[in-house]
């Protein structure tokens, strides 16, 4: 039996096609995934992301704990509400999960972790907490709604408290709280917008108010094509416990300095950093006919050079696009094997599209 978010009755009422995802019954789309994608690129859409887990970490030992737990450095967070994207690594340098951590005070940080990995993450975090004075509280009482698109902020702000209306001034990757309401200028689409934590018992009314304000409900399908176009990784697909951030295009999230910060996984990562055989994480645009899919094999002549980690159709480019992990000597193009045929693809640097437009010259 899958879990349901507090917004489940709203999804049913709004005609969602509900599918199992990471232990939850979640909306795939409300009619047309393509329309929802365009709605977010051109106007405003909303996603129920209440299946993700908010974890509050409080106590005198929290900062030193997180500086050991995360590959990025929370020491970089100085202002209340500031957010940081980071990987949480295992001892081998593989990615346990990717997450966002907010600084709410020297003794209070808030993390948002993936739905499917929540139990694993909490067990790992618990196992690494020995010797630190801290308390971990999963905030199952909070729902979370992402409102994304060029008109997302203007449609959302009038529905918020007077204090939270100042969220309109937030720089990217910053948040503002009012009681249990929490508004962050973050997202997973490459568009302007908010991710909003709201007390569970107020979530359905807020969802309805957003809908009444012209924000269209969008499902996981559009969420996936939007994040792919925006060049954002998906945990479990682009990286996992066996893959390091250096082979998933996430080297930029690893804080190497200060050199004496011994975060978990640092040793293996240092070694891999110097390895010339280290795999490269690239973007692909299919130039031939077809659609790129996860796990399709890539070739340079007869030599197999890697595989697609996330592939799909880009509604903005009207082309098929993908992320792939390949050997480091990849050139400007390669071949993809689709149903036994070799189809040419161009190697590019993601993102593919952001803020309503293609960012690649094709």
């Amino acid at each position: 039996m899958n879990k349901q978010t507090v917004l489940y009755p709203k999804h049913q009422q709004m005609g969602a096609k509900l599918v199992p995802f990471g232990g939850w019954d979640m909306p795939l789309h409300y009619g047309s995934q393509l329309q929802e994608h365009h709605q977010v690129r051109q106007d405003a859409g909303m996603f129920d992301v209440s299946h993700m887990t908010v974890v509050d970490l409080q106590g005198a030992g929290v900062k030193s704990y997180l500086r050991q737990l995360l590959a990025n450095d929370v020491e970089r967070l100085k202002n209340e509400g500031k957010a940081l994207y980071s990987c949480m690594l295992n001892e081998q340098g593989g990615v346990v999960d990717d997450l966002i951590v907010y600084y709410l005070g020297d003794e209070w940080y808030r993390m948002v972790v993936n739905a499917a990995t929540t139990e694993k993450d909490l067990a790992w975090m618990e196992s690494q907490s020995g010797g630190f004075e801290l308390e971990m509280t999963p905030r199952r009482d909070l729902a979370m709604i992402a409102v994304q698109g060029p008109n997302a902020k203007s449609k959302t702000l009038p529905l918020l408290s007077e204090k939270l209306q100042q969220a309109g001034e937030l720089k990217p990757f910053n948040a503002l709280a009012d009681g249990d309401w929490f508004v962050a200028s973050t997202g997973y689409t490459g568009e302007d917008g908010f991710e909003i934590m709201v007390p569970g018992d107020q979530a359905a009314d807020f969802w309805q108010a957003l809908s009444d304000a012209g924000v269209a409900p969008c499902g996981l399908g559009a969420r996936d094509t939007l994040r792919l176009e925006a060049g954002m990784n998906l945990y479990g697909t682009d990286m996992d416990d066996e893959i390091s951030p250096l082979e998933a295009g996430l080297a930029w999230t690893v804080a190497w300095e200060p050199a004496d910060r011994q975060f978990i996984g640092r040793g293996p990562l240092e070694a891999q950093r110097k390895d010339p055989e280290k795999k490269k994480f690239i973007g692909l645009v299919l130039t031939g006919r077809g659609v790129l899919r996860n796990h399709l094999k890539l070739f340079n002549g007869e030599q197999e050079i890697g595989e697609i980690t996330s592939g799909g159709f880009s509604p903005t480019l009207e082309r098929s696009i993908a992320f792939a992990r390949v050997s480091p000597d990849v050139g400007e193009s390669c071949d993809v094997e689709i149903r036994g045929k070799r189809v040419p693809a161009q190697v590019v640097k993601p993102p593919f599209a952001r803020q309503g437009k293609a960012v690649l010259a094709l």
Partner: protein
Amino acid sequence: MSNTPTDRRYAKSHEWIKDEGDGSLTIGITDHAQELLGDLVFVDLPEVGQSLDAGGDCAVVESVKAASDVYSPVSGEVIAINDALDGAPETINEDAFGDGWMFKVKASDMSELDGLMDAEGYDALVAEEE
């Protein structure tokens, strides 16, 4: 009330096949199939002149979600394909039983049609799957 047209036959793999009465048979996927697939973004059709075996895969439809093979319900030779789908695969979403037709064949054995379902049988199959 079912919208399944009664002027044609249906395969278990969700293709429809219509006898045009001039020796040609038109083949497409059903409205139920397109709905399961979601927004279509790519269609790969057989080539004119290609010979097909009943039950063999001969075309591919890909949606935003996944790729799916299309099987020929009968044996025969491809005599026409719906080129318009190449630039507009969404036509199948919009009109699976009409403008979204995929290809036409000249059947080598018309009796193969007898093994397929009528509209009522197909509706029963869909109801069973749901």
